[in-house]
């Protein structure tokens, strides 16, 4: 079995999350426009950490721990009242965390945890401000 982040990102992109478009690595937006949101996509700083440790003698197996980052953009700042945006943003965080924790990788990978950070105003690749948050998915793989 080989390491395959594209397999994992494809599985994440295949998640059905109500009201959220989930994008794969080859769909990372260069510029995110309001009609494209709400949208969860791989952060350009996608792989935030990776480490591998040998867990057997020969034939050797390795345990690989990786954190991958996504960005969720909900609505452009100023396009809606914050009082309207915030409940939907919180609900989206619930849905995204639930969906990611429910991802079943079988023997290929295991979702070890999901964390949310940067809750609030985020910039898209063009510098435009959106309400959203960052999502970090902690993965364990054995190869």
């Amino acid at each position, binding site marked *: 079995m080989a390491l395959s982040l594209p397999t994992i990102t494809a599985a994440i992109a295949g998640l059905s999350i109500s009201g959220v478009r989930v994008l794969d690595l080859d769909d990372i937006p260069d510029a995110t426009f309001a009609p494209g949101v709400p949208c969860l996509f791989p952060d350009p700083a996608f792989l935030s950490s990776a480490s591998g440790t*040998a*867990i*057997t*003698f*020969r*034939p*050797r*197996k390795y*345990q690989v721990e990786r954190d991958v980052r996504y960005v969720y953009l909900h609505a452009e700042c100023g396009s809606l009242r914050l009082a309207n945006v915030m409940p939907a943003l919180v609900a989206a965080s619930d849905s995204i965390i639930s969906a990611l924790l429910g991802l079943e990788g079988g023997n290929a990978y*295991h*979702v*070890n*945890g999901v964390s949310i950070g940067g809750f609030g105003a985020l910039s898209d690749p063009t510098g435009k401000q959106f309400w959203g948050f960052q999502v970090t998915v902690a*993965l*364990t793989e*054995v190869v």
Partner: protein
Amino acid sequence: MAATTSSAPFVDAKIEYASGSAGGSWIDISGIANSLTVSGGEVEVGSANTFASRYPLLAAGARAPIQVEVNALWESVEASGSYAGLRTLADTDPPVCRVRYSPLGNSTSGSSGTALYTGDPGYCVQLDWPGGDASSGDPVAVSMTFVTPKLTASALA
């Protein structure tokens, strides 16, 4: 003395066991094992003092048995594989077996002539049942302990 040129890490170790006391059919568990610790074998030393000296008289007795502890990965397939075989051994009464290991036994650059440590017939005195917790993605690990009267060093063929 010149610095050694033959020291080595333990990453290429080969660990084997054989059920029964003959040791003819060695089973390689290197593919699930990830650490090995050897302890025991100390000589029992007795001492007594006399009025004639401030220092004790010593006498050497028997040696303690040697424990070979191996940490390994549990395997999910029960029908075959090393854990299942170890389970069968550990559940046998008594669990007679032999154990041997070679620090460079799996070296890709060749192991001939390197050290092999072979235990006399002893017992597999403990093998963990698998356990874990739901929050971890780590492979399930188990440990086992073999006890042998002594280890004999030789060179791998």
